């Protein structure tokens, strides 16, 4: 079945450093979505990428959708304590509106 994999599972970052988390799908996705869950909170939608090779930025966050639409990445520059949380990628099953979520990358920040 369709599966979305995320790496790494955990990311410990020094405040001010950059890092990247990756998302890979076993099948082509019509779009990829990213969500953020703060500790003790619920997942909150960040962004959706639809086009092959698409790149979108939200302040210090850069999201990219692969050319083959089977992978995606989230790059955070100059990490801040407000970036703490778990980042999930998710993609829909073909012709379906269910989402397959990756296991998430949990980010902790050292001040």
């Amino acid at each position, binding site marked *: 079945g369709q599966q979305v994999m995320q790496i790494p599972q955990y990311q410990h970052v020094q405040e001010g450093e950059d890092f990247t988390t990756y998302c890979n799908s076993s099948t082509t996705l019509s*779009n990829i*979505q990213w969500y953020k869950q703060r500790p003790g909170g*619920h997942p909150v*939608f960040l962004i*959706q990428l639809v086009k092959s090779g698409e790149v979108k930025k939200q302040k210090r966050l850069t999201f990219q959708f692969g050319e083959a639409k089977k992978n995606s990445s989230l790059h955070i520059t100059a990490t801040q304590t407000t970036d703490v949380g778990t980042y999930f990628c998710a993609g829909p099953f073909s012709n379906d*509106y*269910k*989402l397959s*979520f990756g296991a*998430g990358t949990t980010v902790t920040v050292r001040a």
Partner: protein
Amino acid sequence: NAGVTQTPKFRVLKTGQSMTLLCAQDMNHEYMYWYRQDPGMGLRLIHYSVGEGTTAKGEVPDGYNVSRLKKQNFLLGLESAAPSQTSVYFCASSYGRGGHGNQETQYFGPGTRLLVL
């Protein structure tokens, strides 16, 4: 506009007891979902609904039942709770087919933390 709300926020059950989790959304969304979240396993879909009166099984449906009698409500039932059902349960909703903009974008409720002893 409250978005997605869940009741209760926290519950402790004994093995074998039953309970119902309530999810309500005021965004007129067609699709609603129930997930469970366990450490290291992300969000796993239990059941979902594509409209009032319809339900379907997700990835981990065993031990759970659902009902969608009204468009705005989606109920998750545990008939005989087991310790393996200790988890955080999230409800979500989306516009679905024919909706506005990002049809599949899901809006999550605050979650219900369930402990089964």
